[in-house]
C-alpha cells in the first residue's frame, strides 16, 4: 500500500512523531536509570558484594557453602557470585576492570598479581593486617610474602602448593619397574624414564623443557633463579644447559614424540600426559592431584621434582584480592579474612584451592580429611614443607605470563628440531628480558 503524505491532520502527524520520539527515548532513559541503580548496592544497611573466581563445579559448590555461612553470621551481607573455568577468566577480569566494574573480591594467581597490583587495581591490604581486620599471622612467612608486590600485600593466599612430579604407579607395577626416588638427579631421572620407555613402550616422562616451574627448580638448584627482583635470574648458558638436558632426554627415548609433547604443554589438567595415558610422569602442582585423579583410572604417585628438593618453596596456588575501587572495602576484607581463618569456613573449603594457608587450620584439616588423593597431597606437601630451604622466591614480576608463554614457544622450537639449544637459549633470554621490561 502506498502511504499518502496528505493523510491525517497536522495535529495527528505531530502526535505520531511525538510517539516515535517517545518510543525511542524511553528505553534510553530506562537504560540510564538502570545504570544509576548500580550505586545502590548498600542501601538500607544491606551490602551486596560481588565475588569472582575460576575453577571447577566442585569449587563453586564449596565456595557457595562457605559464603552462605558468612551470610548466616552477617545477615546484612549477601553475595553476587560469578565463576567460570580457567580459560577466559583473565580476559573477563581485565574487561570488567577496564569498565571500572571489577568485582569487590576476585581470585587471582601469581601469573597476574603483579600486573594488577602494579597498576593499582588491588587494594593494599597491609593496613588491615596492622589494625587486626585481616589476620595473616598464622600463615607461613614465605606464603604471606608471596602475596606482597612492591612491599604491599596485594593478595591473601587461599592455598599453598609446590611443584609435584606425578607418576603412574599402575604402569610401573604392571611392568615391575622401580618407582622414581626423591633426590635423584635430573640425569638419573631421565635414565629412569628412558628405561620405562624401553620396558613398557610408553614414553617414561613428559618433556619438561617447556615447563616453567621445572626450569625454575633447576635454576635454583644451580644457584640461579627465574627472577632476581625485576631482572632475570639466569643467563644464556643456563638455558643452553636446560635445553640440552632435554634434547639428550629425547635422544635417549625418555620422552614422547614432539606432537605429544606439544599436547602435554597445554595448561589444562585434563590434557596432562599422565592422565591422557601418553607418558609415565607429568610435571604438576601438588594441589592438582584430586583433579588429575578424576581424569584417570590408574593409581598415581606424587613426589618432588628431581634434584635437591630443598629449593622448592611454599607457593600461593592462588589468592583472593579486593578491588581498590570497591565501595565496601572493609566488608570485602572481612570476607577474605573469614575465608582464610574461620575454622568452619576452612573445613568447608578443604584443600580445593591448595593446603589451607592458616597452619593451625591446616593441622585440623589434615587430621579430618578422608579423600585419599587429598591425603596424598597433604602428606607429600607436609613432607616437602619440612625441608624447604631459606630464601624462597618472591612473587614474579609484571610480564611473568609472557615469560611462561615464550618458554613454551622457544622450547618447542628445539623439540621440533627447528632450533639448536644455543639458538633457543639466546632467543629465550632476549624474549624474557623484553617481557619483564628488564635491561
Amino acid at each position, binding site marked *: 500500500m502506498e502511504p499518502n503524505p496528505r493523510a491525517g491532520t497536522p495535529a495527528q502527524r505531530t502526535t505520531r512523531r511525538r510517539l516515535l520520539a517517545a518510543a525511542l527515548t524511553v528505553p534510553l532513559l530506562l537504560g540510564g536509570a538502570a545504570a544509576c541503580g548500580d550505586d545502590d548496592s548498600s542501601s538500607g544497611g544491606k551490602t551486596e558484594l560481588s565475588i569472582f573466581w575460576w575453577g571447577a563445579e566442585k569449587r563453586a559448590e564449596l565456595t557457595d557453602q562457605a559464603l552462605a555461612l558468612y551470610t548466616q553470621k552477617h545477615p546484612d551481607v549477601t553475595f553476587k557470585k560469578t565463576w567460570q573455568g580457567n580459560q577466559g577468566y583473565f580476559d573477563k577480569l581485565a574487561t570488567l576492570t*577496564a569498565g571500572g566494574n571489577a568485582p569487590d573480591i576476585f581470585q587471582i594467581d601469581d601469573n597476574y598479581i603483579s600486573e594488577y597490583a602494579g*597498576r593499582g587495581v588491588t587494594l593494599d591490604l597491609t593496613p588491615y593486617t596492622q589494625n587486626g581486620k585481616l589476620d595473616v599471622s598464622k600463615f607461613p612467612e614465605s606464603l604471606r610474602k608471596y602475596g606482597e608486590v612492591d612491599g604491599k600485600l596485594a593478595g591473601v593466599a587461599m592455598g599453598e602448593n609446590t611443584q609435584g612430579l606425578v607418576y603412574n604407579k599402575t604402569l610401573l607395577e604392571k611392568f615391575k619397574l622401580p618407582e622414581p626416588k626423591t633426590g635423584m638427579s635430573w640425569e638419573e631421572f631421565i635414565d629412569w624414564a628412558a628405561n620405562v620407555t624401553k620396558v613398557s613402550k610408553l614414553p617414561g616422562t613428559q618433556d619438561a623443557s617447556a615447563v616453567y616451574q621445572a626450569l625454575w627448580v633447576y635454576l635454583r638448584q644451580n644457584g640461579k633463579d627465574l627472577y632476581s627482583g625485576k631482572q632475570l635470574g639466569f643467563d644464556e648458558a643456563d638455558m643452553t644447559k636446560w635445553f640440552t638436558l632435554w634434547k639428550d632426554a629425547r635422544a635417549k627415548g625418555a620422552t614422547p614424540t*614432539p*606432537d605429544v609433547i606439544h599436547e602435554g604443554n597445554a595448561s589444562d589438567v585434563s590434557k596432562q600426559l599422565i592422565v591422557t595415558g601418553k607418558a609415565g610422569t607429568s610435571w604438576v602442582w601438588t594441589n592438582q592431584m584430586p583433579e588429575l585423579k578424576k581424569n584417570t583410572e590408574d593409581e598415581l604417585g606424587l613426589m618432588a621434582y628431581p634434584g635437591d628438593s630443598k629449593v622448592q618453596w611454599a607457593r600461593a596456588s592462588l589468592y583472593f584480592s579486593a578491588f581498590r575501587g570497591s565501595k565496601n572495602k572493609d566488608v570485602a576484607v572481612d570476607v577474605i579474612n573469614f575465608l582464610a581463618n574461620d575454622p568452619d569456613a576452612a573445613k568447608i573449603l578443604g584443600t580445593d584451592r591448595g593446603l589451607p594457608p592458616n597452619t593451625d587450620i591446616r593441622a585440623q584439616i589434615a587430621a579430618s580429611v578422608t579423600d585419599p588423593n587429598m591425603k596424598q597431597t597433604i602428606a607429600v606437601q607436609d613432607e616437602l614443607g619440612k625441608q624447604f630451604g631459606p630464601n624462597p622466591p618472591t612473587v614474579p614480576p609484571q610480564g611473568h605470563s609472557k615469560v611462561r608463554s615464550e618458554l*613454551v*614457544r622457544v622450547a*618447542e622450537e628445539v623439540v621440533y628440531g627447528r632450533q639448536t639449544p644455543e639458538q633457543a637459549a639466546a632467543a629465550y633470554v632476549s624474549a624474557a628480558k623484553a617481557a619483564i621490561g628488564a635491561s
Partner: protein
Amino acid sequence: MTASTLTRDPAAPAAHRPGRRVRRRRENLAGYVFLSPWLLGLLGITAVPMLISLYLSFTDYSPLISLGDASWVGFDNYRRMFTADQSYWHAVTVTITFALVAVPLKLAAALGVAMLLNRTMRGISVFRGLFYLPSLLGGSVALAIVWVSMFNREGAFNSFLALFGIEGLPWVNDPDWALYTLILLAVWQFGAPMVIFLAGLKQVPSELYEAASVDGASPWRKFVHITLPMLSPVIFFNLVLETINGFQGFTSAFVLSNGTGGPVDSTLMYTLNLYIKGFVELDMGYASAMAWVFLLVIGAITVVLFSTGRFWVHYSDNEER
C-alpha cells in the same frame, strides 16, 4: 515508498505550495527517526569505539588502568610493530599464507560445486542445502574442536589413510601442517560463495551456450569464453568478500592452538596475535595500533582489487552502452 519518491510525485498538487519545505523536513526527520536504531548502533558500537581505539593506539593503555591515566607515547607502538616485534611479522606471514592459499581454493571449490548443482534434477535443492550446511556452522567453536580431533594423530583422517597403508602425521600438532588444516577447514566452508555463484550462473543467457554448441565449442571453451566472463562480476564480488574474510580468520586458529597460536606460532594469525597482545598481555595500546594497521592494509588490498577489476570484470550493461 521513500520520502524522496513521494516528493517527486509529479501528480502532487502541493509541490509548489509554501508548505513543501516544511513537509520535506518533517519527512526527513521521520526517515532519521526510523534510521536511528541503526545510527545509534553505528555511532555507539562502531564509530566511537573506533575513534577511541585510534587514540589508544598512541598511548600505553592497559585495560587495568582508566582511560585518562594512559600516557601518550606518540608513534612508539607503530615503531615497535614495524621494527622491533618479530612475532608481528611472523603473524603477518602466517596470515598472508593463509589468505593466499585458502581464498583461491575456496572460490574454486565454490564455483566447481555451483556448476555441478546448476542443473534441473530431482532433489537438487536437497544437495544445495547439504553443500551449504558447513557454512551455516560458520566460525563455530564446536566445528573447530571436531576438526582438531579429526586431524589428530589418532584422528579419523589418519584412520582413513591407514586403510591404504599410509601412516599419517599428527597434522594439527605439526608446525609444518597445522596451518594447512585450518586452510582446509576454511575451504570446506565454501557454501556462501557457492550460493552466490549459483545465482550468477542462472543469469548467464542459455543462447550463448547454444550458439557456442552450434559452432562446435568444447565444454572447456564454453567455460573459459562464456561462463568465466559472464560470471566475472560475481567472481569479483566473492573474491573481495572472501579476501577480507580470509585475513580476519580467528576462531579456528584460537581453538586449534588453545589461544596461543602454536605449535611454535605456526597458526599465529594476525587477529589472534592482536587478541593475545590486547587481552593476554594487556598491552591494549599496542593492540589498538595493530588493529588500525590491519584496517588500513585490508582497505588498501580492497582498493587494489577494485583497480584490477577494470581489466577482467565485464559488466554486461557497460558493453551495451
